[in-house]
């Protein structure tokens, strides 16, 4: 959460010229202040200490990358990249390893969650930043922040208790006349997407709200001055001005949704089927979590293979995020 906030604030700072000025003032570091005694050795040592601290994160990332590749690659080369990624049958105990149902489930599940979660989240953030009276914000804002801190397994439990039975009722209505359908009892793609959409709400609300608040007051005044209404201002001026922050919110939402396991393992059904709304499905994440305990030999290797695929996905998402942000910054 701290990372999300920091990046959101960084974006807010970018678009606000005032804070930029402040930052540039701070950069001129004073050579001799009253507190700093200006001892060269201490400075150097502290530089090294900072360097070591920051390299811990880099080393961890490097180790993870090396480990994921070294433990995930063997099974992929054994099965063949094409068969592993595009194979549509997952039967690890029979040594059939095709993870395309899981990949498609993760991709489409995430897209669907974003399609549901982003409009709701964005509207909420607009409401909080622009429309709601202060007394309401005082109640809703902490609530949203609290929502972000709730462990994901709690979302899963509530999904299993509330969304699953509802989803089963809908399923029974939809497939009333289809004798071929395998009933999932509510543990299906539909339930998982709803849980994911709710889970990514706080991320989207918090970051896009920060971005909206950071839009300079002059923009609003100019818009009103030209005769625009409040709603027109929101959609034509404020949201376009905050779009890079909103794009960040969406990508971070994607990251959270695709990496989530505990919340959806209880509601997805966990069979490696193709992603249809009322199929029991298995995500890349839940596949690893669920099968790791009892897996052995090539089965376990295959789970590392899944981990590697997921890792590559997250990397791609991060690179895309960086490209979007850089592109937007240049366009400005």
């Amino acid at each position, binding site marked *: 959460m701290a990372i999300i906030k920091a990046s959101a604030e960084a974006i807010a700072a970018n678009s606000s010229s005032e804070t930029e000025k402040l930052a540039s003032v701070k950069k001129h570091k004073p050579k001799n202040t009253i507190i700093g*005694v200006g*001892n060269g*050795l*201490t400075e150097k*040592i*502290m530089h*090294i*200490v900072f360097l*070591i*601290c920051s390299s*811990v994160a880099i080393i961890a990332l490097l180790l993870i990358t090396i480990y994921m590749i070294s433990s995930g690659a063997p099974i992929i080369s054994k099965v063949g990249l094409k068969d592993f990624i595009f194979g549509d049958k*997952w*039967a*690890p*105990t*029979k040594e059939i390893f095709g993870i395309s149902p899981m990949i498609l489930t993760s991709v489409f599940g995430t897209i669907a969650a974003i399609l549901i979660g982003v409009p709701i989240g964005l509207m909420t953030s607009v409401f909080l930043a622009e429309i709601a009276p202060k007394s309401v914000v005082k109640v809703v804002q902490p609530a949203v922040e609290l929502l972000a801190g709730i462990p994901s397994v709690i979302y899963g439990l509530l999904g299993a208790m509330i969304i*699953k*039975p509802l989803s*089963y009722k809908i399923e*029974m209505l939809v497939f009333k006349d289809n*004798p071929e359908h*395998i*009933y*999932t*009892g*509510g*543990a299906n793609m539909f339930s998982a997407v709803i849980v994911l959409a709710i889970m990514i709400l706080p991320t989207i609300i918090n970051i896009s709200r920060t971005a909206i608040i950071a839009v300079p007051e002059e923009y609003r005044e100019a818009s009103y001055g030209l005769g625009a209404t409040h709603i027109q201002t929101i959609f034509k001026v404020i949201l376009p001005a905050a779009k890079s922050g909103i794009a960040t919110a969406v990508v971070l939402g994607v990251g959270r949704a695709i990496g989530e396991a505990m919340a959806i*393992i*209880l509601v997805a*059904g*966990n*069979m490696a089927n193709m992603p249809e709304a009322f199929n*029991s499905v298995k995500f890349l994440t839940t596949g690893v*979590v*669920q*099968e790791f*305990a*009892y*897996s*052995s*030999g090539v*089965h376990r290797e295959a789970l590392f293979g899944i981990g590697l695929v997921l890792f590559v996905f997250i990397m791609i998402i991060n690179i895309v995020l960086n490209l979007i942000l850089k592109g937007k910054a240049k366009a400005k």
Partner: protein
Amino acid sequence: MKNNFKKFLTLGLAGIMAVGLTACGGNESSSSKTSSGSSSNNTSSTSSEDNASSTDKLSGKLTINGSTSMEKVVKALNEAFIAKNSDVSIDLIASGSGTGIKQAQEGRADIGTSSRKLKDSETGLTATNIAVDGVAIIANKEVGVEDITLEQLGQIYNGEIKNWKDLGGADSNIVVIGREEGSGTRGAFEDIVTGGEAAKAYAQTLDSTGAVINAVSTTPGAIGYASLANVDDTVLSLKIDGVEATDETIKDGSFKVQRPFVFAIKEGNDSELIQAYVDFVLSDEGQEIVQAQGLTKVK
């Protein structure tokens, strides 16, 4: 003065960090070396000590490898055995029944544990049943069926029977629930019910017995399977071919969905320690532990 202290502090911090960073890697390798070294020492000294001393005090090292389903019960047995014989150490690895049997044949493990009967091809071993694992078939309480045949059970799990009314129960879709791939309970169930093939009609697979029982109790029309000992009254335990799942019916073999837990020991490998361990497992005390783990006693 203050400055010197600062210097000292930063130097110290940096030093601690450097040590901490290097220590991680270093420790691991050194500890693994020592453990592997001592283990080889132990095994080599075991046989000579056993032969030399005819006292009652057992010592030495047992290696057990095999079934993941049996890991929990064997661990409990090991703890009790070591509590009585403090000079004995037991290495337990759970890498699957097949591997365990193979290692026992090759003499790399003293005891291979298997959660299925030995195949005819697996020769050169003495098999001792130490427990029976009964897999109860459970259903949601509202299904209106109490007794099904083993064949019907297979048809349900392969999606050929889709509604409880086809079995004389309520008009309710059957939601098939089971365990994840690799689970021992699932292996036992599929060996008996679907001929070793993965059941085709799974709607949900869950990764613990408790989760299965919970899902069955809360999902209308659900059917599932779980170790008998864990089954409670939130779900209906179905009779199979008219036989209710109880300790007695599992012990006498009339309840069909069950599998033996087997110790496979290489023929001729009858050191005092192995013999004492097997005797302990089959003793009243050992069988009490077996029962406490939710399994059925063999004695």
